[in-house]
């Protein structure tokens, strides 16, 4: 039986051909390299749609309860996944040749595709893409904040400032479970904001929680409820009162004044509004005494002023990191910084930093340059 005796050479030459070669000679240049359904499917695959959760987080200790984990997407991993998807029905050397021929074109097409999928899902006209696909990053957030607050707003920025120009494209934002949120960004952010959904003005207090997320009272704050004081008058009315000693913010950080919210002894879920009013009056009076003419307060808290004190604006949690480009510095630091109407509280910076050499050793030497087993 005859064989395709020149197949090696044939394949070799096929390999040098690509879809651009077709379109630049005799075929329609406007035709997309991939049919729409394929590019959409593979684009979603790139964005990890439909991936079993175990493949993302193979050990639950990687994402404990009430935690947030930032990550880079290993583009080699997603490229291999696309390879696998395109390997379906690949049996003869001709299909191999075809895959070789289209590999780079498909990769570039998907680099574009993955960036417009979210817009298409939201039925927006995809905006013009600028530049090449950047590093893809994101985070997994597992918390009751995800299950309890539908419609969280997530924004990521690069460039040190949270301005619209610095905003990174949000590639995907989905709940993988009732309390697990996955977000993917186009680029490496140095600021990530997670904001409570804006559902109009609400009244309430801040709650001090214990380890089981139950309300916990302390000696200073028996009710476990507290309020951050706001300016009542002047230009900064409505803004929280910053905490300063001798005009210098403590630890360089502006801390809000808080008052403990009194509750009824008879039922600690019922606020003691009268006593709260008195406590706010007293604290504002103290601040006025300390700040002098810089602080305006007329000495009494009325119904309107009390409601202003109890207003709860959507809370925005800001995460800041070094946002280092891969692979120059492999472990960016993400600090938790609380951001609330101009005042900022730094909370922790506890991320272990790996030696870049160790990472290089791992990713390049240890795992890359070993002769593949099997294959054709």
């Amino acid at each position, binding site marked *: 039986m005859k064989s395709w005796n020149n197949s090696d050479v044939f394949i070799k030459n096929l390999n040098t051909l690509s879809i651009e070669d077709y379109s630049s000679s005799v075929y329609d240049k406007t035709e997309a390299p991939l049919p729409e359904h394929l590019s959409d*499917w593979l684009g979603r695959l790139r964005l990890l749609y439909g991936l079993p959760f175990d493949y993302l987080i193979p050990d639950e200790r990687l994402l404990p309860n009430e935690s947030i984990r930032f990550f880079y997407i290993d583009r080699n991993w997603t490229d291999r996944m696309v390879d*696998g998807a395109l390997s379906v029905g690949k049996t003869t050397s001709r299909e191999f040749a075809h895959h070789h021929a289209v590999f780079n074109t498909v990769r570039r097409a998907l680099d574009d595709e993955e960036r417009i999928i979210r817009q298409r899902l939201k039925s927006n006209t995809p905006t013009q893409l600028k530049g090449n696909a950047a590093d893809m990053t994101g985070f997994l957030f597992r*918390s009751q904040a995800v299950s309890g607050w539908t419609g969280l707003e997530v924004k990521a920025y690069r460039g040190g400032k949270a301005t619209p120009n610095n905003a990174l494209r949000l590639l995907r934002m989905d709940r993988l479970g009732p309390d697990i949120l996955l977000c993917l960004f186009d680029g490496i952010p140095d600021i990530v904001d997670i904001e409570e959904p804006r559902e109009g003005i609400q009244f309430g207090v801040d709650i001090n929680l214990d380890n089981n997320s139950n309300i916990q009272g302390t000696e200073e704050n028996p009710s476990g409820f507290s309020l951050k004081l706001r300016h009542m008058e002047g230009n900064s009315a409505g803004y929280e009162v910053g905490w300063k000693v001798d005009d210098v913010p403590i630890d360089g950080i502006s801390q809000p004044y808080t008052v403990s919210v009194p509750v*009824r002894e*008879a039922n600690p879920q*019922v606020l003691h509004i009268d006593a709260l009013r008195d406590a706010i009056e007293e604290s504002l009076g103290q601040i006025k005494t300390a700040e002098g003419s810089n602080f305006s307060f007329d000495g009494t808290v*009325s119904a309107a002023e009390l409601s202003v004190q109890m207003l709860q604006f959507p809370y925005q949690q800001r995460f800041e990191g070094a946002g280092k480009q891969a692979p120059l510095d492999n472990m960016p630091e993400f600090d938790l910084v*609380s951001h609330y109407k101009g005042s900022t509280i730094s909370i922790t910076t506890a991320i272990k930093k790996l030696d870049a050499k160790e990472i290089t050793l791992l990713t390049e030497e*240890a795992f890359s340059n070993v002769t593949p087993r099997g*294959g054709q």
Partner: protein
Amino acid sequence: MSNQPNEGSVIFYDSCPPPLKAGEYTLEVTQQLQEADDPGSESTTYTHIDKQGSNPLPDTQASAFEITGPRFLLQADEIHAVFPPANADGPFEGRLPCAVLKRRTLPWERTSGTTNTSKQPWLALLLFTEDEVTLLDPPSCTVGSVLSHKPFSWVGEPADNAANTLYRTLNNTEKNKGCLGIEVPISLFQEVAPLKSELSLLTHVRQVNTDDKELLGQDKDGWFSVVVANRMPLSGKKYIACLVSLEGQESLLPTEHAELTQPRNATPGIGVSQELSYRTHVRKALYNNNTSINVTARPALNPLSANPVSEGPASENRANRVRSTMEHASAPSPSIENSSLTAAATHNDDFALPNVSINEGITPRATGLYEHVEMASWFTYNPNIGTLTTPAPTLKLICLARWSFQCEGKGDFEGLMKALPESGGIGLVGMTEAQSTNEMTTPSNKHNVALDSGHIPLQHQTRDGEQKTSFYRGPLVPAGIQRNINEGPYHTSDQARRIDPLTGLENLGYASAFELGRLMALNDSRFALELLKWRRKGHQRASKLIQGALIQRKLKDLIPNFDPREFLDHRRLIDELLGDVAPRILTDDLLGTLTDPTGLLDIMDRLPGLDGQMVMEALGLEAHQVEAMLGIDLQSGLSTGGLINHGNLIDEVGLTNETVLAGGFENLLSNAEAEFGHLNADHINELGDFDAFEIEGPQ
């Protein structure tokens, strides 16, 4: 409206009382005449008007009018919004329910005070758990039935029942009107209702910018009145928020409450039992040391035994309140039987106090409703039985609005976010050092590095059945990893397996990715189908390209001054050549094996089943049947896409079998054998070597 606040800002006002409250009024009109040059004088000179000398001006005229307003019912469109939304299910701990009303004057159109000049609002938002209240609905619930409710009928009506006073002013039509209502135990009402002095603090007016469409919808003036509740929902309970009318019933409200001074304990069991225990305490605090009552309480939560909390910065008022609590604390404690009721039995108003004896001359301490209810009617001494019972005196209130919501999930958003560092932590995906040490029994530096870079060891069953440990790392990595675009494409997952030369462990991350992609593609039949279609199209294009290059090269040899650009610009020409003409040029001996990839042509004589003529004769079929069956053209012998390629690349190139177009190439093509024959020998063995057939078309 003019004077709108700026966009995005809200202006708050303490109150917005109407000039006149709702109610019946009489307008009295009297006239007086005054002399123009003596404005201060009495109006006496009017004889010139009426010669008769009698009173020339009409008597004082009175006309009655009424200012109406919502009283027992509130139309749904009077309420702009409620929070938490009705029937919502969410984490509302830390949020106070509130009702936003469209009429800015509504809370002050009537008053809870006893005089019409009182500035007390008449609306309050009360929050109860589902099991604390009985909901009353029309038609059985009427205004009359609510207002005439006599909680103490078994001892006679209290002397000063505001609701009953109000009741007596209503006519029958009003009394029979259906309304929403609630029935609550009086003690509970006392516990959660705002103090008299708090009522006005919980009501305010706000003005917002009407450009804020999302907030306002179709509303026009941007003014709202807001009634805020004073009770916080607790997680895990279903609540009913009631906007109640307190018209004229100020006396129901408590006038004083002690502050909680000892830390609220977050031990398990917060919630019902703790709330109830505190409630028990309130009742107990009503009795001073003159009383000797055996009261059941849970000793562990008995606030009377609490140590006084040191006074922090507190206002004089607050200090007083704290001190008043201390008074209770320092009073000789009632003898507490350690009878420790079970939680199920401690519902405040359902349990009977066993063996209660009561002394004469009790001085009630609490204020508010208790004052007249307390001793007169709470406990009644029944000489026949000799014991006291505690029936549950209740209160009925008219609800202008009522909605329920479920409080699920704990804490508030800010608290949860701020607790992140202490709870699950903030970091990059990957195990912490401590975790990785536990994972490996004999940790080495290498392992820790691998683990910290996101690899984790997993049990892996090889295809030989061997159980071993291999590394896996998913797509989420803690460090930026260089994308290696020179790798790939991989054709099997085995190509992606890697071995760590230092530990000998395999890294199966990329191999898993490959397999996962493959399985997901196989799982989606449409994707697989589209993939095959797309690939076939690619094959066809590749073949066309190759053949086009071949033809181009041959034409170049044949035609002097042949310009391949011109040639390639004629797309139709190429299509024709490839569509039908080319196969005739590229007959089998010219292209040899390429035209016969199956190799069947050589053995056709041994395959009678593929010979159209023989099949037709043997089976007695019509020619077109055979043609359709075998995919050949009996006359020309050319394949039409069937099993046999007879000098034809049907499947490869997507050729058609149209008649050859007559034209400039006809001469060339009609004698293709002679024209191309001599080239055959040179190229027949180089068919795959397309370096010789480079495309020279436009780039």
